């Protein structure tokens, strides 16, 4: 398998605070990779660096053969990178359909003039966009919520809409930031099932930050562990779960106790 995403020696400082320090790892195409670590380990910061919401202080990030370290945030969607946010970032006043349609933004071409006239090409494009969105709605099993304002839905369903919006981008790589936090058992299992389906049926590569060890151990191919902004271990789930560094990061060392 080839590397879809390669992070090389990435560091991010906020003033005197080093949130991420010299982290390197790769995500293989077609894999499900998990990024875990205690709170404050720098996982979400690393996600923000990968998705270009923040700029790294040093280091480089390559995605699908492109150097993306210095690209503006909006350019990554077109290259095929999509993400969800740890705290919901849905467009809460809009309907489920409109949220998903925003995800299609980079796939559509309409310019302001033809948009104002809305005949011919603009209309055809909107119709195609609706067809595409219907596929995602069907995949995520939210047919009955189409026209509801997203802000009125439950937390779990809003997360699902956010996942759908990321899928609408048509990504090669999907970054999921704590998808299942705050969800009940049933919702968690739904999400785990969706993630597996995404990889197996649509051929997506998934990188996820996750605190739920059950899901991490069950579905990931590769696990990367961070603590204090540094990578402390990586490997298959079974190996990582018995790694002494990881156990120390989560439980503390025997001597300290």
């Amino acid at each position, binding site marked *: 398998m080839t590397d879809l995403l390669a992070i090389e020696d990435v560091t991010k400082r906020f003033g005197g605070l080093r949130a991420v320090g010299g982290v390197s790892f790769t995500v293989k195409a077609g894999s499900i990779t998990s990024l875990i670590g205690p709170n404050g380990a720098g996982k979400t910061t690393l996600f923000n660096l990968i998705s270009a*919401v923040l700029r790294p202080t040093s280091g480089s990030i390559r995605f699908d053969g492109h150097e993306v370290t210095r690209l503006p945030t909006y350019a990554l*969607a077109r290259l095929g990178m999509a993400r969800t946010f740890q705290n919901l970032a849905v*467009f809460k006043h809009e309907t489920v359909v409109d949220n998903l349609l*925003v995800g299609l*933004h980079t796939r559509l071409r309409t310019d302001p003039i033809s*948009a104002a006239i*809305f005949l011919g090409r603009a*209309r055809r*494009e909107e*119709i195609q966009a609706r067809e595409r969105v219907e596929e995602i709605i069907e995949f995520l099993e939210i047919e009955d919520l189409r026209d509801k304002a997203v802000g009125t839905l439950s937390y779990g369903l809003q997360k699902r809409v956010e996942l759908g919006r990321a899928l609408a981008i048509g990504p090669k790589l999907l970054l999921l930031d704590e998808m299942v936090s705050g969800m009940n058992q049933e919702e968690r299992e739904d999400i785990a099932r969706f993630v597996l389906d995404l990889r197996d049926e649509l051929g997506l590569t998934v990188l996820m930050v996750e605190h739920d060890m059950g899901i991490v151990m069950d579905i990931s191919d590769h696990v990367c562990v961070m603590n204090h902004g540094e990578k402390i271990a990586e490997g298959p789930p079974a190996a990582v779960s018995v790694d002494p560094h990881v156990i120390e990061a989560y439980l503390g060392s025997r001597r300290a106790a």
Partner: protein
Amino acid sequence: MRTGHFKESYGELVALTDSSVTRAWVGLLVVALLLLPLVAGNYGLSLATAAMITVVGAVGLNLLTGMTGLISVGQSGFLAIGAYTNALLLADYKWPLLASLPASGIVAGVLSLLVGVPSLRLKGLYLAITTLAFAFIVNHVILYAEGLTHGPNGVFLPNASLLGIDVSRDRPLYFLVLAVTILVVLAVLNIKRTRIGRAFLAIRDHDIAARVMGVDLVRYKLLAFVISSFLVGIAGALLSLQIRFVNVDVFGLILSIEALAVIILGGLGSTAGAILGAVFLSMLPELIRIAFSTFGSTQSVTYTTYVYEIRGIAYGVVIVVFLRFKPDGLIGLWRDVRRYWTNWPLAY
């Protein structure tokens, strides 16, 4: 409740409305507006014209402040730019109206880039203050660039004609404004249902998520400024055609406040709301005048003496009452009423 309603093609999903009832009412409204000159006198007609000009301006402002979430208190500056461009092109440069009307919008749109650029970094109140400053700058430039703008003397408009029809008379002007209003409303509704409108809404609701979805914030914020100011500039040009004499005093700070009042009153973000708010606030002084005159001649005199003060107070009261009791505005009120009668006689 509406039942038995199915969509058979994706084309129906992107239509402006799927309800034949709505379509019928809108058709009826357009027919009524077309027939209005037959029943209304010159005064009624000029009121209606002023209301529709307000609609054009409000729809433009709403695209920026309601849809994209960029608060602008400076749109009166673009109204002034539109009005002056039209007046000067007609009076001094003898352009035909067919060219000067779009030119007014284009000049306002291009100049809006000047305000748009700071908006890329500023949000909320900071942007509001910047745009406010811009409106003052516009007024001062107009006052002191006498060679170009006639400064404090103002500009008298000559009789303008469009396709051979003299639009300085009430009826042709009414039809011209009606046509422009319909086009503008349709254009904004259309923009709202494409990727451009959705990008605006996305920026308002969550700008970081919008960026991650591939929305170029720089481009779309500037685009919102340009489209909004283009429409406000057109409204200014129409206004200049109606008032026939353009002077900076028309475009004071109070106008920007009124404009914000219109879209708050109508319901932020909704085009229908902006239309309702514009019509309601345009008619408000008239309602007050009628109210005063029904109480006898002394009250009528009081009104004519203090007309500006009373109007100012009325705008203030309307804004406060709506923000306190109906923040969704008139469009929210309309939705509530509709829901009530849909479910009647059950509560819900």
